[in-house]
């Protein structure tokens, strides 16, 4: 165990997995000499050479498109998208090929690529450095999605993604790249995809969250001690999703509040609510409330705190579901 910041845990995972498997390579804009704009890939080019840690041209569709071909040549590419909103040029390759190619070969060829990127807001950045694009990824068949909220999970989920035979998108909450510190197992450390984590036990309401919103949920749970006993569930992986933990928690509490940074319509919070409306309808003793970003463009940063779900908004939702 050593204490690491979340971004360093990502870097640690890349070192360990590249060491372990010579077919793993890292590619993206500025990942090599610079080590990435967030230093997530620092040291990899020195350690593994410029052929396994590649500074690519500035072309996201080219990065993911060539990564598909690299898979066919036997590589396991880990592609960095420099920021959330800059991953959109690659959506075409992701939807039409990354998620479909294995199926096209009737399972004969694997496409074990990983797309990792910093995502989410509250970092006082210029426009389009704040998106939460998980819906675009999780809605796409053939693609898995993991989102860590702690350094240990950042390492373990990324390792699982790299070892997974299917394409996995890993969204790293950039707000807590350096704010989240925690003990991280040294050497190999894998956190299986599809297992949620009960962050805090509670009996009145389940607050479902992922990424940077887990911290918000935790702080709300603490702030409401006495008024309400909140269970906080960190999904960790959106696809595969740990429905059992979700349903078990709501069966116990009878109430749910789901938190996400992304816009509301067709966000993952809607998926969680829909699952509850289908499979927990008779456990629910009140409405399922979603606390999300709004269905408007992510604002200039002087207003971003009013856009991103705040402790006040989450606490208000908890009170409302319990009052209903």
């Amino acid at each position: 165990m050593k204490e690491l910041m979340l971004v360093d845990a990502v870097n640690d995972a890349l070192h360990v997995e590249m060491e372990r498997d010579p077919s793993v390579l890292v590619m993206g804009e500025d990942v090599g000499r610079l080590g990435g704009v967030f230093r997530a890939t620092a040291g990899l080019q020195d350690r593994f050479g410029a052929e396994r840690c590649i500074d690519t041209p500035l072309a996201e569709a080219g990065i993911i498109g060539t990564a598909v071909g690299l898979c066919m040549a036997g590589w396991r590419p880990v592609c960095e998208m420099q920021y959330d909103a800059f991953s959109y040029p690659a959506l075409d390759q992701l939807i039409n090929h990354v998620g479909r190619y294995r199926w096209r070969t009737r399972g004969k060829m694997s496409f074990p690529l990983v797309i990792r990127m910093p995502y989410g807001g509250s970092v006082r950045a210029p426009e389009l450095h704040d998106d939460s694009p998980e819906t675009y990824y999780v809605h796409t068949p053939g693609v898995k999605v993991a989102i860590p909220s702690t350094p240990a999970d950042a390492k373990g989920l990324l390792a699982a993604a790299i070892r997974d035979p299917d394409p996995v998108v890993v969204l790293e909450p950039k707000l807590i790249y350096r704010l989240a510190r925690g003990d991280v197992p040294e050497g190999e450390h894998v956190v299986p995809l599809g297992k949620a984590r009960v962050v805090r036990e509670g009996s009145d309401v389940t607050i479902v969250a992922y990424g940077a919103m887990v911290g918000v949920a935790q702080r709300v749970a603490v702030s409401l001690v006495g008024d309400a006993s909140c269970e906080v569930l960190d999904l960790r992986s959106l696809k595969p999703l740990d429905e059992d933990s979700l349903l078990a928690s709501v069966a116990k509490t009878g109430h749910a509040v789901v938190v996400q940074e992304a816009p509301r319509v067709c966000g993952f919070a809607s998926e969680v609510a829909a699952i509850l409306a289908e499979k927990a309808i008779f456990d629910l003793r009140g409405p399922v409330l979603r606390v999300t970003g709004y269905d408007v463009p992510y604002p200039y940063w002087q207003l971003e705190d009013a856009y991103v779900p705040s402790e006040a908004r989450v606490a208000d939702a908890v009170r409302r579901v319990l009052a209903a």
Partner: protein
Amino acid sequence: MSQVLPAEGGLRRIIGDGESRPDGEVEGLGPEQLLALFRDLVLLRTYDERSVIYHRQGRIGTYAIFWNHEAMQAGSVFALEERDWVFPSYRDSAIGLLRGMPASTVLSWWRGHPAGWWNPEDYNVASICVPIATQIPHAVGFAWGSRLKGEDRVAIVNFGDGATSEGSFHEGATFAGVMKAPVVLFCNNNQWAISTPLSAQTAAPTLADKAIGYGMPGLRVDGGDVLAVYEATREAVARARAGDGPTFIEAVTYRVAPHATADDPSLYIDEERAREERENECVGRYERYLRRLGVLTEEQAAAIRAEALELMRVGIAQAEAEPPADVSLVFEHAYANPPPTLAIDLDELRRILG
């Protein structure tokens, strides 16, 4: 900075017109190979013509006709080694036949039957790519990745003139140049993208002029001249193998058939120009060349055609004999480790279908 030849102006030709323009020869191609190439052409031509009939008979679905594109497909693949990979566009759906893929497989693809989905590693032929130009980065990544692994494999990717307008073409070609990928970007310039003429596609003087923007040589060849296509591709493949990087080949032809069985070209095409082209279509052109050379007899030609027809008869019979696909295939193969929900969905579906 890689050495760049300026793109060629005129079209490379080997086959003469039997009159003023004399026949040339391709160094190193003996009679067997010349005949083998003819066999390839006839095979593709027969596949295509039979497919149009099968479509009319309702035995296959919509079909993208490649009549008069055979010289580009056969000529380019003939310049490859078995270990080299082909990344076809949907227009090149039957290119796998040149690698021993059964006709039934390709026919099954057009019949929307799972038997049409092959393992690329069995033939070194990637899946048919439907979204225009998106297979170009795949070929580039494959070639680059093979080189990184120290494997001597070249990739060729086939696409059309319209494809050169897509960002995927640009990004793929950009990576190819930077990574010095052993890849051949083979463009069939049939001068139409469905109903859109080349003049509405780009203002570039020629498509080969795009090559220099990626730091690679651009060759121009008569796409109806199978020997010229072969020779140009051979040159590009040699360059790739030598580690000198990618080449862009513009093979110029004219689309004389409908874009696909659903299309009505009378709404846009230049019938006059099409008629000319039809009279000079690539298979007949090569056959006359072989006759002039004295390498091919009536009988041989007839036998080769009969052989191809037989192969198609067997192919369609096999395709039609495929058992109906089981619904489990809706869910299989999407993931190596599927999310648990898929099995539940399949059970429910089976229950409902009874």
